[in-house]
């Protein structure tokens, strides 16, 4: 019992430390990869491969003046950046990195993830509202509309996976993929989840809440110093979270040939999706706001519903057949 508790604490601390180390590292990774795809060097001076640029960036953020505009709503202004980091970090609680390496195996794991991602919308809305600035408010409104709409498809696209595995627990969902990864029978669900996931983390091409060519910096125009850093880290944590979720739900989580330990398989798959996120940023232009909304409600929603219906019918048909035999 004592050993179990110690083990659990170690896992929790390990996951937290791992996330907080890798998330700033992604800044470096993103800048190097973008540079590679755009035929330039990127940060390559400080330290080996320019890795120290992460340290320099962080130090810079810490030493910047932490300025709260006099016209802002101070309390809400301070809370907003914390919300995004808290909700994303809490979402990692339900992700199984390997058999047994999970902070809390909730039997409503998937719903917990959806709940936390919908709470994350508050950080954008409140940050934009509290800044008391036109651009920030516009960014916040766009963000709120985008996040609420894409949450709908995000939740619905996962229901196919839930139907096939018969559980909301991520641990059980991964175990249900022993025979075949869910990306094959649920390919439509995978594509829709990936698109909705990019929209949820408001990464390019769906970074409309912060579209810098139109809105200065969108909802975080007024933020500086470590408060801005929180939004920044929150975004990278979000990228990691969506990559982890895709890995768990559609690509078999830790499952893989036996020559590598399960955790390594998980990390390889996770980084493959992080690379995909960055490649999308490097290659796709930003759609207009109304185009994004139209795409969501007129294309993704019907597709998700069809996917759900076909999956349910298929499963019901099979179940009846197996009962008949």
């Amino acid at each position, binding site marked *: 019992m004592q050993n179990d508790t110690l083990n659990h604490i170690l896992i929790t601390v390990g996951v937290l430390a791992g996330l907080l180390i890798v998330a700033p590292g992604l800044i470096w990774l993103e800048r190097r990869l973008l540079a590679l795809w755009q035929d330039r060097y990127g940060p390559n001076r400080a330290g080996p491969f320019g890795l120290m640029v992460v340290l320099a960036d962080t130090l810079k953020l810490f030493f910047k003046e932490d300025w709260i505009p006099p016209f802002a*709503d101070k*309390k*809400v202004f301070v809370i907003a950046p914390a919300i995004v980091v808290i909700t994303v970090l809490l979402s990692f609680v339900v992700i199984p990195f390997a058999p047994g390496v999970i902070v809390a195996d*909730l*039997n*409503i794991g998937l*719903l*917990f993830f*959806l*709940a936390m991602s*919908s*709470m994350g*919308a*508050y950080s954008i*809305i*409140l940050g*934009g*509202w509290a800044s008391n600035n036109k651009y920030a*408010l516009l960014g*916040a*409104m766009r963000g*709120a*509309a985008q*996040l*609420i709409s894409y*949450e709908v498809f995000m*939740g619905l696209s996962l229901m196919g996976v839930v139907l096939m595995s018969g559980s*909301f627990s991520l641990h059980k969902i991964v175990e249900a993929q022993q025979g075949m990864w869910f990306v094959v029978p649920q390919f439509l669900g995978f594509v829709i989840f990936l698109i909705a996931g990019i929209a949820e983390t408001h990464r390019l091409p769906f970074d409309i809440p912060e579209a810098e060519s139109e809105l200065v910096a969108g909802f975080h125009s007024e933020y500086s110093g470590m408060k801005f850093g929180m939004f920044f880290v929150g975004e990278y944590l979000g990228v990691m979270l969506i990559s982890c979720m895709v890995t768990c739900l559609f690509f078999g989580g830790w499952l893989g040939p036996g020559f590598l330990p399960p955790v390594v398989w998980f990390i390889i798959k996770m980084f493959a999706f992080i690379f995909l996120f960055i490649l999308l940023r490097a290659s796709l232009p930003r759609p207009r706001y109304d185009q994004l909304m139209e795409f969501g409600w007129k294309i993704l929603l019907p597709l998700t519903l069809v996917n759900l219906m076909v999956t349910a019918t298929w499963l019901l048909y099979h179940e009846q057949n197996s009962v008949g035999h």
Partner: protein
Amino acid sequence: MQATFYIASAVAVLATIMVITRYNMIHALLYLVISFLAVAIVFFILGAPFVAALEVIVYAGAIVVLIIFAIMMLNLKEEAVEQERIWFSGNTWIGPGVLSVILLGELIYILVSSASPEVSSRVIDARDVGLSLYGPYIIGVELCGLLLMSGIVGAYHLGRQKKKVVHRFLEQTDEWKQ
């Protein structure tokens, strides 16, 4: 478990009181979110994890976001806070206060007179909720569906716009010519 239940309930009650007494509407709504989260924890402790998750997703995550969205569009400034302050003073408290005290009395009476409330230790998961929704309560589900459908049709009607073929700038110049 008992302690967590009482802490969550206390937070819910306090947050709800704060919702009523705040002058700033966004602050009130933030307390409402906290109240919903506390209620979700209460549900979880009572053995209804599915309902707890839905409470957070639907109420805290979607409905309150939409209310905040609407309030942000109204762009209420200090005058609105002042207006609230005026409304909240003095006599406005008497009516709701008296009614609430009556309800509180009834609640205490029920709590004292009835035997220990029966809390089933069984966990109610998504399967149970689904079976009861589409079994005994199917008529309620259907009626909710109808209500939501009429809401969507109404919203569509309100938001409908005439399709413009001409660009708005060209249209203006046309008017100017006439």
